[in-house]
């Protein structure tokens, strides 16, 4: 059973990782010269996720469950935009971003 504190930490990690990925993907689809600043925002969110991952025991592995949750969250945020007419968003890239971030956070 997942303790209350662990649940709270996982929520923060998921929220910040999904925010970092969203920044990256949306920045990719906007004007090149303005995107740099937003990659920095992605790094900020990722650093918060790292900080709270370190509070979890190292025995805890970032499971497939967390990976699929993260993919679901990001895709749902992107789909909401696509449904409202947002072009150039590539859902296929989500898995790649998620895998790359989870590797760094393990």
């Amino acid at each position, binding site marked *: 059973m997942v303790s209350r504190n662990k649940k709270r930490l996982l929520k*923060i990690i998921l*929220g910040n990782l999904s925010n970092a990925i*969203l920044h990256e993907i*949306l920045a990719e689809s906007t004007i090149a010269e303005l995107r740099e600043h937003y990659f920095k925002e992605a790094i900020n*969110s990722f650093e918060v996720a790292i900080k709270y991952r370190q509070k979890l025991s190292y025995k805890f592995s970032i499971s497939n469950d967390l990976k699929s949750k993260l993919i679901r969250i990001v895709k749902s945020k992107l789909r909401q*935009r696509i449904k*409202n*007419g*947002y072009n150039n968003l590539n859902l296929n890239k989500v898995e790649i971003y998620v895998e790359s971030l989870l590797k760094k956070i393990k």
Partner: protein
Amino acid sequence: MDQIYLSKNRKSLKVGSYVTIQEIKSPSIINPYYHNVSYIEPIKYNIIKSIFEFLEAEENVLVTGSFLEEGFSFEDLDLIVFGNVSGIQEFVKSNYGIDVHIIEINSNEFNKGINTDPLFQMIASKFIAKNRIILNINNQINYKLMDLALVKSELILTNYEISSGPEKYKLLRNAFAIKRFIENKQVSKEFIDKDIENYFYNGFINDFQKNIIPLKDFQKKYKRFYEALFSQILDGIKKQEEIIKDNPRKSK
């Protein structure tokens, strides 16, 4: 042949003395330009002046942000430098013990920033500059960029229990700045603060910065604001995408 005249009647320099000729540079006079700043404490003025002197050779330098607010509760000193910034961080830190946050930019990028980015427009709404600068503000709303700019404010709720008051206030201010910007209203810290207090309650910012507002008292109202703003942005994206579809040249 160039000639230099030395007067005959002088106390020193005997006839036949060897002399060195050197140009004496007259000290340049810096007259700072104030934009929406009515008062600055003398000690802060001296710091600003020494920064302008240090960066004298650069095209222009703007001091902005919390350093210009009355009192001494600023976090750091925000500088926008049109030119080379090398050495300035060390100069301010070693002389005054103040951290400097620098934006190194050229005048084209600066003009683009104030016209397309609400937070940049807010930063540029109040400053002291080394040289006079004219702002040509003409909001150019790129809704995809606004969507991207709003993403970080989503984290207020996720990180509510782990963030400090000032951290949360910055994210909240970001969302309200975007709102003003897309409604073509002037973006300045004062106007944004007024909007925030009108939306929540009088004295809200003080309580929020002190971090004494429980999540449950904040989240419902914030979510309502955020969702309405997000949907306003999505509508804007839809309209802009349709314009681009009808006229592909506009995307360039």
